């Protein structure tokens, strides 16, 4: 078979040309060469990855991608988004199809250590909860014995759910789907009594129901779900760029810098602010980025609070409270190490 032979030869040729990408800095080089950050995101998912009719993306997870692009290129639009299902997401990152996975994925021990990936930092602290129809008159998850539960397959949610029901000696019927909108639709149509997912998703799912007012989120939170971006293991430089791009948004909120007042703040006397905005030496540390990288992020994408409110908070249909995602100063968990 001639074709197979040609294939083999072609394969060998390409193998000899392919560059080993293991060394630190390779990702940044590749990103610069592509002139864009290849960012893996969710399939359309209100609040975290919205897509309008023209195909433009916005949302909390999208902002992380944009922040990284702003830090590297000074242009938040130099991002190439790839929608990924739960199943594809890690493979896509592992194979280099995307440079960065910002797809509300939970950081866990096994994912951080066993899959060649590194969890960057939680950009949204979440917990798994339950959404039920009001008509069922259920007040607590403990009353859910015997219920049919809709879940997205291949998620930590699926495992937590089984654990929770087992721990409480209750029975359930799992109804699983690959995609989130299928889960929501099944719940809406009455295929199941309960929809379980991260609470952020529950709120987001609720607004896509026929009758959003007819469903309530139960008070129980059965798991810790720190959601955040992932990068490939083995390129520390890239990990640091992504991690600190996200911290920059949190730090900006902490320092009171917003996209609106960023220019004004460059004139601030506070050395922390000056350092942060690149007006004074020392802020850029050793990242291979422009001195004003953090300024670019805040100016072009906004601080964490801005991003949160317009994506999932009061400025959005989801109206999620900051809760655990408030700054540490306000009793939440969002905390950036100092920029010095």
């Amino acid at each position: 078979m001639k074709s197979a032979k040609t294939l083999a030869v072609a394969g060998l040729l390409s193998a000899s040309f392919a560059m080993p990408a293991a060394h630190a800095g390779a990702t940044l080089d590749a990103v610069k060469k592509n002139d864009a950050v290849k960012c893996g995101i969710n399939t359309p998912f209100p609040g975290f990855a919205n897509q309008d009719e023209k195909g433009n993306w916005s949302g909390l997870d999208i902002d992380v991608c944009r922040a990284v692009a702003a830090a590297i290129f000074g242009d938040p639009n130099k991002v190439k988004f790839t929608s990924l299902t739960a199943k594809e997401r890690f493979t896509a990152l592992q194979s280099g199809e995307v440079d960065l996975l910002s797809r509300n994925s939970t950081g866990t021990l096994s994912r951080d250590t066993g899959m060649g990936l590194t969890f960057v930092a939680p950009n949204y602290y979440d917990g798994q909860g339950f959404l039920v129809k009001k008509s069922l008159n259920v007040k607590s998850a403990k009353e859910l014995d015997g219920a049919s539960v809709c879940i997205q397959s291949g998620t930590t949610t699926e495992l937590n759910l089984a654990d929770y029901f087992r721990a409480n000696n209750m029975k359930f019927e799992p109804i699983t789907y690959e995609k989130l909108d299928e889960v929501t639709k099944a719940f809406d149509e009455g295929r199941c009594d309960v929809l379980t997912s991260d609470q952020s998703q529950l709120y987001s799912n609720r607004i896509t129901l026929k009758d959003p007012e007819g469903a309530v989120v139960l008070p129980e939170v059965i798991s810790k779900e720190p959601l955040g971006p992932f990068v490939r293991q083995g390129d520390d430089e890239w990990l640091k760029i992504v991690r600190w791009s996200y911290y920059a948004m949190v730090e900006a909120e902490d320092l009171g810098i917003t996209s609106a007042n960023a220019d004004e703040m460059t004139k601030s006397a506070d050395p922390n602010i000056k350092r942060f905005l690149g007006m004074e030496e020392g802020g850029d540390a050793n990242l291979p980025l422009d001195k004003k990288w953090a300024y670019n992020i805040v100016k072009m994408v906004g601080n964490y609070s801005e991003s949160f409110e317009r994506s999932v908070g009061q400025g959005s249909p989801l109206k999620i409270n900051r809760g655990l995602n408030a700054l540490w100063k306000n009793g939440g968990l969002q905390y950036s190490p100092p920029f010095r």
Partner: protein
Amino acid sequence: MADPNLSATPPQTLSTVPSKPSFWNDPQKRALVFQILLVIGIGLLLWFIFSNTLHNLDKRGIKTGFDFLDRPAGFGITQTLIPYTEASTFGRTFLVGLLNTLLVAGLGIIFATMLGFSVGVARLSKNWLISRIALVFIETIRNIPPLLQILFWYRAILPLLPGPKDSISLAELFYLHKRGLTLPSPLFEPAFIWTFWAFIAALVLAFIIGRWAKARREKTGEQFPVLWTAVGVIIGVPLITFFLTGSPLNWDVPALSGFNFRGGLTVIPELTALLLALSIYTAAFIAEIVRSGIQSVSKGQSEAAASLGLRPNRTLQLVVIPQAMRVIIPQLTSQYLNLTKNTSLGVAIGYPDLVNVFAGTTLNQTGQAVEIIFMTMLVYLAISLTISMFMNWYNKRMALVER
């Protein structure tokens, strides 16, 4: 080798074997070289893929091997034919998925065959209306993707059913609702075993009656209503035993409690939708096969049978069907194979088949893509090979019978 007896004085100048062509012009040598090169090429390609995969897996810290099959799965599955809990292993998950696949395939084959044969015969009906309806059915169904049909049933039609609390109920025993069809499930008492044995005995008896009737027919020409007797025996004998042993069977009657029905047996809507769509889709193809199979038997055959005095139904039984089957069976088997492969579309509606729970969820939870996809493909390959082995055997047998 020259034989001296054949030519008394072989001329010395003539070689006794044909002269050898030069190496490159010898077709055998060329073929050999070509094949060696090909093997090397494919070997290199495989080695290339293999080494890349190993390297990639290694770099990502993914352990290879089948150890994961012994680890607990941790997730639930809607429909399990064998005992399964969240604490069961991934190996068990594989089995559960495989059985669910085989369940749909088996039921689908039965329904598709029944529907397909009916439509195929209807297509040949003398009643114009029936044959037209069969034609419209065939031409509509087989030109619409099966996935679309599955989704249509699951997403558009089944949700129109009422919720569990407002189920359509039949005699308070059967309930049809959004979450499936709930039926009473049997609870067997130990004495039920007698009914079971009676059933086996009845099968044997029916077989014996069949043999006896055939022997008698051949001996005396008397015909005996074998089919009805056999049906009577197979139903009657276990039934009598059942009552004689004191009706050792109870029914777990479903009752609405809490959110869902408790007790009984629920056929989940995913199964219903998948079965409906695949049976109907495959039936459209089977109908065409049956029609063309029956039509492939020339009119002369039934005329000859008729002229010998055989009634139309006997003609069908003794002359047309045996010949049509030889055209039908190979194509039918390949439709069965297609149906089996199409059960994998269940993943689109969350039916827990092999592809869904194993190549889907398990892959996701473990990340062992290579092993899992490999195992999944192997299962389907094994099924296909078994079926095509059967086909080869059948074709060979038929070739023997025909000539």
